[in-house]
């Protein structure tokens, strides 16, 4: 019973995820692409919950669908590209080759995944993926990377301010 429910929930999130991801690539207008990307991030957060990654799903909505997408939309509005600035879509040989290469890569990877011997996932306790469990890990085993991340974010803030200044 729970198996069936899990499969149904998986497809409920997976199909809109792929559709909205394709929408990001297909959209001509960056605003539509950004809106599709927000929907894709929400669907992905649902998949994360299915994988018992509660904290990461929460961060996905908070950081990706919230902060990063607001940044994207802000820049899109700031640039306010008109239709002629978006340019006429030209299909070039390089782009066709790139798409064909991408689809070929997907074929190889999907075949490799299909050949993996299926194995039931481990049984995990209710603690798995909670803020408490992941936080304990982050502040013990991954303390140095965590501190390095704070420095990275500081560098990114300073770098963004310097790059976007009037004269570079």
């Amino acid at each position, binding site marked *: 019973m729970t198996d069936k429910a*899990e499969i149904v929930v*998986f497809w409920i999130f997976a199909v809109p995820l*792929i559709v909205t*991801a394709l929408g*990001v*690539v297909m*959209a001509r207008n*960056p605003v539509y*692409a*950004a809106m599709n*990307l927000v929907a*894709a*991030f929400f669907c*992905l957060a649902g998949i994360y919950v*299915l*994988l018992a*990654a509660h*904290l*990461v799903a929460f961060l996905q909505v908070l*950081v*990706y669908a919230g*902060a*990063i997408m607001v*940044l*994207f939309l802000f*820049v899109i509005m700031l*640039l306010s*590209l008109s239709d002629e*600035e978006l*340019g006429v879509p030209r299909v070039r040989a390089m*782009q066709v080759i*790139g*798409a064909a*290469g*991408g*689809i070929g890569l*997907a074929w190889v990877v*999907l075949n490799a995944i*299909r050949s*993996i011997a*299926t*194995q*039931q*996932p*481990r049984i*995990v306790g209710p603690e*798995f993926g909670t803020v408490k469990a*992941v936080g304990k*890990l982050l502040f013990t*085993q991954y303390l140095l*990377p965590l501190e390095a*991340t704070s420095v*990275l*974010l500081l*560098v*990114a803030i300073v*770098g*963004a301010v310097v*790059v*976007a200044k009037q004269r570079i």
Partner: protein
Amino acid sequence: MLTVNYYLGLAAVLFTIGLCGVLIKRNALIVFMCIELMLNAANLTFLAFSRQYGNLSGHAIAFFVIAVAAAEAAVGLAIVIAIFRTRGTVNLDEVTTLRDS
């Protein structure tokens, strides 16, 4: 219980869509969004294996990936704004200052 293969397949499809977007699209903003899609596909793979082996390290790595993606988006979009201000375009084909020859 769904096996890990479903999630890996979904991540592979998502990564391919992002890769095709990077290769096909010429608008710098949409290329950035496609890079975000690829980062998310990597995150999904980390979390799928984390669930499969009952090891929480994948969650920590996913956390770092999200932080790095935030930093990348901030700096990248600042560069896009700087390019738009000096050249009036975000079309990647027209930004060729660093090209050889």
